[in-house]
């Protein structure tokens, strides 16, 4: 049984007008339960569009998306996935705890149950003492951890992340990557993760999906075999570098028409 299935999906913006953009053409993707999959590619390759199609924030022009054997629309109504963005997107006027409770409020949970769950999520992201603070009192990394706690508050089987660590400094970023792997391991959550960073994609993922622009499509899929227990030593392992090289070469292929290796714009090497 697959956690997520994308079958023959295309997304064309402004169809039939001079401004037509083929954001995605014939994308097929199957993600297994508890799998961590990253989408990587240069700007305009449609990776964020694909994430929004899975989230049902956009409708595909053709093809179908199913989450947990449901249509994407039904999955959204049932809150079968949680979402996190580059900006933590916390609400300034809500305390940390109330931010985490928001998706539960919308599900109609009662107060006691909500507060208990918020407490549990704060333990999960290791920030239990911050429940009654407001977002501005937290660092960027802490805010992003709260955003992850909020995304997982309703215990969704699927987590969708759009460059969640893109705005963080390198050290915080690596710490957050470790935390994310721990949290997803503990909760057995399936993750689809959009990123610009090759090492980030490799470190986190079971599979890295390489995409290419004009038209947006999947060009290669790279299996990352670093085992399920990853830690800071993983970043120095041979397999880690082999996979980074494999992803980098696959990305170069997406720019074959430029015949120049340094034409990979929008993809960070760090």
């Amino acid at each position: 049984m697959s956690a997520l299935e994308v079958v023959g999906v295309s997304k064309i913006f402004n169809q039939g007008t001079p401004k037509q953009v083929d954001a995605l053409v014939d994308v097929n993707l199957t993600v297994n339960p508890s799998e961590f999959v990253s989408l990587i590619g240069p700007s305009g390759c449609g990776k964020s569009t694909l994430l929004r199609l899975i989230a049902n924030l956009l409708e595909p022009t053709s093809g179908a998306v199913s989450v947990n054997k449901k249509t994407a629309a039904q999955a959204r109504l049932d809150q079968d996935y949680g979402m996190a963005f580059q900006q933590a997107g916390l609400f300034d006027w809500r305390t940390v705890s109330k931010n985490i409770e928001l998706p539960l409020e919308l599900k109609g949970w009662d107060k006691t149950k909500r507060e208990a769950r918020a407490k549990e999520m704060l333990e999960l992201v290791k920030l239990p003492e911050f429940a009654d603070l407001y977002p501005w009192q937290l660092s960027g990394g802490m805010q992003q951890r709260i955003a992850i706690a909020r995304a997982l508050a309703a215990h969704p089987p699927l987590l969708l992340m759009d460059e969640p660590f893109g705005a963080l400094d390198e050290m915080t970023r690596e710490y957050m990557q470790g935390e994310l792997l721990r949290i997803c391991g503990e909760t057995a959550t399936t993750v689809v993760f959009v990123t610009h960073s090759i090492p980030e994609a490799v470190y986190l993922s079971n599979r890295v999906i390489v995409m290419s622009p004009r038209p947006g499509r999947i060009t290669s899929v790279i299996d990352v075999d670093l085992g399920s227990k990853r830690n800071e030593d993983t970043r120095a392992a041979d397999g880690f570098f082999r996979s980074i090289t494999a992803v980098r070469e696959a990305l170069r292929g997406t720019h074959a028409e430029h015949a120049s290796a340094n034409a990979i714009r929008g993809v960070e090497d760090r």
Partner: protein
Amino acid sequence: MSGVNTTMVGARGIGRIRQVAPTIVFGVAFLALWESAVRGFDLKPYFLAAPTKIFEQFFKNYSRIWEASMVSGGNAFVGLVVGTVFGIAMSFILSRYRFLGELITPLAIALNAIPIFVLVAVLNNMYSITSEIPRRVMVTLVVYFIVLVNVAKGLTQVRSTHVELMRSYAASEFAILRKVRVPNAVPYLFTALKVAAPASVITAFVSEYFGGLQNGLGSRITSNIANSKNAAAWAYVLGACLLGLAFYTVSIIVETVTRKGETK
């Protein structure tokens, strides 16, 4: 333990004094300069009254200034409340039906471009000469536009991440309004009130210059000047300043209490 606390309070007190001291010193120095200029150059009272004379008049006419302040302040308050209520109501309608906004915005800009005080003269003709209504309508109009423009901005300019997030939770438009748009508009409302509160006082007493009842601060200033009682006129100006300050201070207190902890 208590020793530490006392020191901390003491340190904070000194910090506070350091903060306000320059302002107080500047204010006192300015008044001293004014006073000595009037005395030194022997300026005539009809040209410029000395601060000491103004304060003397202020305390002598204290009860009359208080009464006039209540009249002008009452008009300002009624206009402020009614204008705020209408402004908020209209901003909700405009943010819900965008096309109405496109229809009304040019009209609102055009209305703002005309010197709005002249409307008082027209309103005075519409109502009896003993009515406070024209001034209150005037204040309402001024406050209404300030509140409308700001709150409408707060309701519509929400962060796209927030809206996407709410849609990912399958939230209804009403839920997005209640949990995102309205809270987002609250700081905008207070920004509007901080501008509208002093503006309501100014509007209330400038409106008195266009006729009607002669019982407010504005009309007292005019009549005192007409009678060459310059220092008394200044005393009423001082009253007007204090009234405006009072309105502004209250708007800040209301904001602080309402949004406790949310911001730095």
